[in-house]
């Protein structure tokens, strides 16, 4: 089987399972006895193993297999969940993550895993020792139990239980039958169906795990378990089932309702009631999500969007025609169509929205390992992970956020002893919050650490010649804080493994600004720091000012415009061979788009006395773009010029206007030097 076609799916799904592993491991650390968490982890690990084996990534499959053994042990209460165990588990999931990333980068996912496997084996041996101890004391029951729970049926409802009880009374025997299909079995669904046919001739299937509909959809690895009621004995049944080909192994054991009830009871009594409920809710929610989503390639959505825009253009023409004809029915139909297509546009836009959780979910684990490395105690508090924003933004904000969080862990939160002397709780808190605000999403990263030391920042800035002595006095607190975002502020001295990576926060600032967003800092010395990142909801639609230059139309992104102005030609000065204007007390150089883009002149145009100027900014610097006239502000869909025309000077892309014409988008950043 050629697996290349499935590689993308494999990588996507593996990442999802790894996310689940990370999340549930964190949960497990807090609730070490919660069986539903273990189940969740077990399921994720198991699926991952199956997928990795199918795709032929052996080290990935091996390591997952080891991991699975450990969770099996934890589930059977033979391994205690200790901090050391958790560390090894986290480390191995990190390794898995690295392998998957390697595979997605074109590698083969092989990695030196002997060391981590050794640690895992140690834990497992610990289990074995415990197991042998247990075996000595209460021999039979433990074994029975461990086998029972191997692929045990969970959550029988009352109805099912009553059937089982009833059948026991009528001298039927209740069995738990586990069927292992051949690993290479291609039509798992069909095989399963054949097994069920055989079973139904011998008795009755009460419950299947995974449920029947998932079996039909081949939503399982290669093992399934049924609770089965029959009068036949084990051997007869085994023989019958094995008549179906491609079955590796059948385990049949009596199913005892008493044991089941006892186990259920003990599981429940182990857990605080409300916790259990909460966990179940989570499990339920993820199950539902899994069954109701489909994966769609983003380029298909883009195609849909493109086609829809064409539709909108035709709609415009149709509206025009219907007005000319003054035909009642035609007009009503066109109006209806306009409304529907408006709704359709909203649907298409929201389809591209994904919860920010996709980015946030990997942070808790990162914070955990970082804080361990730095011997700090840090709790991360995530709020608003369900806030949705466009996929294009999601893809871009991961790195800047990681950088800010690392910064908060490294430079923000103090070590426990310092925190104690300052009268703060030993455990620091980092709050990561996302919420919508108008057409933007706001992400706040707040720590309750030391805050920004303004003296130190000023000294550093002076030392690196970012500011002069004179400027020091005139800077506001806000401006001082923002110095740490200035390029050239972070130097080798402050760069550490954690927040450094050799670049400063200026990179974060640049990235965010290039996304059309902004970043602000609030800080109180000794109390903590809040970074506020504001981002547009989508990168594919931006607000822009459309302008006319001779016969051509250009779009200038609103995010870079300060204001528009109309000035007399006589107000333009010449300074150092450049034409400049006096704009609110500042000398602003002019850029004539006509000359810059060598636009063919339209001779019909009369000479005018006024200049229409769009004042744009890049950081603190300004420039005035001279155009012929302003058409107006409009939401435009950003499109690339294609792979053939890359890096066209001062053009960042194109958009399609209402009349179907292409207008170019001016990249004003490169015009300001």
């Amino acid at each position: 089987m050629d697996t290349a076609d499935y590689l993308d799916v494999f990588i996507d799904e593996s990442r999802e399972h790894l996310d689940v592993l990370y999340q549930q491991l964190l949960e497990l650390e807090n609730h070490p006895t919660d069986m539903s968490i273990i189940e969740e982890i077990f399921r994720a690990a198991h699926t991952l193993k199956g997928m990795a084996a199918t795709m032929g990534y052996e080290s990935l499959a091996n390591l997952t297999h080891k991991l699975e053994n450990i969770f099996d042990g934890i589930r059977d209460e033979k391994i205690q969940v200790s901090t050391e165990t958790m560390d090894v588990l986290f480390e191995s999931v990190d390794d898995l993550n690295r392998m998957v990333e390697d595979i997605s980068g074109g590698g083969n996912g092989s990695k030196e895993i002997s060391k981590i496997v050794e640690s895992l084996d140690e834990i497992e041996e610990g289990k074995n020792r415990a197991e042998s101890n247990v075996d000595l004391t209460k021999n039979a029951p433990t074994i029975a139990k461990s086998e029972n729970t191997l692929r045990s049926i969970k959550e029988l409802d009352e109805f099912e239980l009553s059937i089982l009880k009833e059948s026991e009374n009528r001298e039927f025997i209740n069995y738990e039958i586990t069927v292992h299909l051949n690993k290479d079995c291609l039509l798992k669904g069909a095989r399963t169906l054949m097994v069920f046919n055989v079973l139904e001739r011998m008795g009755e299937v009460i419950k299947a795990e995974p449920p029947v509909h998932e079996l039909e959809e081949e939503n399982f690895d290669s093992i399934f378990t049924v609770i089965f009621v029959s009068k036949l004995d084990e051997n007869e049944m085994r023989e019958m089932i094995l008549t179906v080909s491609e079955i590796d192994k059948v385990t049949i054991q009596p199913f005892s309702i008493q044991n089941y009830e006892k186990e259920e009871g003990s599981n429940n009594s182990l857990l605080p009631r409300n916790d259990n409920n909460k966990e179940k809710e989570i499990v339920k929610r993820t199950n539902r999500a899994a069954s109701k989503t489909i994966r769609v390639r983003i380029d298909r959505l883009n195609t849909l969007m493109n086609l829809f825009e064409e539709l909108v253009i035709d709609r415009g023409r149709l509206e025009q025609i219907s007005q000319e004809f003054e035909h009642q029915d035609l007009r009503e139909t066109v109006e209806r169509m306009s409304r529907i297509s408006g709704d359709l546009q909203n649907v298409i836009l929201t389809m591209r929205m994904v919860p920010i959780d996709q980015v946030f979910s990997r942070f808790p684990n990162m914070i955990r390992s970082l804080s361990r490395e730095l011997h700090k105690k840090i709790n991360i508090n995530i709020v608003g992970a369900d806030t949705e924003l466009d996929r294009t933004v999601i893809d871009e904000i991961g790195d800047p956020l990681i950088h800010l969080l690392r910064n908060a862990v490294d430079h923000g939160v103090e070590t426990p002893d310092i925190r104690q002397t300052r009268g703060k709780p030993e455990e620091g808190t980092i709050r990561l919050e996302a919420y919508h605000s108008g057409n933007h999403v706001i992400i706040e990263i707040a720590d309750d650490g030391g805050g920004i030391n303004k003296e130190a920042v000023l000294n550093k800035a002076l030392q690196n010649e970012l500011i002069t002595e004179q400027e020091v006095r005139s800077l506001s607190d806000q401006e001082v804080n923002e110095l740490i975002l200035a390029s050239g502020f972070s130097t080798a001295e402050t760069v550490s493994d954690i927040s450094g990576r050799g670049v400063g926060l200026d990179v974060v600032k640049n990235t965010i600004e290039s996304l059309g967003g902004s970043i602000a800092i609030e800080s109180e010395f000794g109390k903590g720091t809040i970074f506020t990142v504001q981002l547009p909801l989508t990168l594919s639609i931006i607000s822009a000012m459309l302008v006319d230059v001779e016969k051509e139309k250009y779009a200038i992104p609103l995010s870079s415009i300060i204001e528009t102005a109309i000035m007399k030609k006589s107000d333009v000065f010449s300074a150092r061979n450049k034409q400049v204007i006096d704009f609110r007390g500042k000398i602003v150089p002019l850029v004539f788009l006509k000359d810059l883009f060598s636009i063919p002149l339209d001779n019909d145009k009369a000479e005018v006395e006024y200049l229409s100027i769009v004042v744009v900014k890049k950081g603190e610097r300004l420039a005035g773009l001279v155009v012929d006239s302003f058409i107006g502000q409009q939401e435009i869909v950003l499109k690339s010029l294609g792979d053939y025309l890359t890096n066209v000077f001062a053009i960042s892309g194109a958009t399609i206007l209402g009349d179907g014409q292409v207008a170019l988008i001016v990249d004003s950043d490169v015009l300001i030097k």
Partner: protein
Amino acid sequence: MKSSSALDKKVIVFQLKDEEFAVSVQQVGGIERMLPITRVPQTAEFVKGVINLRGVVTPVIDLRKRFDIEEIPYDESTRIILVHLDDMEVGLIVDAANDVIDIPEDAIEPAPDVIGAVNVDYIDGVAKLDNRLLILLNLNCVLSNDEVDDLKSVKG
């Protein structure tokens, strides 16, 4: 590269001045009548600009200009042939496009040193069919970005 295992090569034939050119149908995404073109400043002269092709912004180049043949005004028979190469999609403006034909593999010969007005670098070979001479275009060279980039580095 040139020799495919299939005996016949299906090509789109188009006209440029008084010569006939051919590109493999596999590389052609469609043929369009002239569409409004938006000029893109500071690109090579043969890059006419971009068009709106069913919602996708697609660059177009004028093949006459590309091969230094004198330009003529676009008319009713002018066509844009959409070709793709790797991930690039580009429209080629040609005088006319009117034929899809099969060329037997053995009719294809290497390009002679001198052939019409077109530089031999852009040619994969020629095919003689009855009394027609088809020039097989090498899209890799036609669409190579080298010259576009050269121009940019001079100006920018």
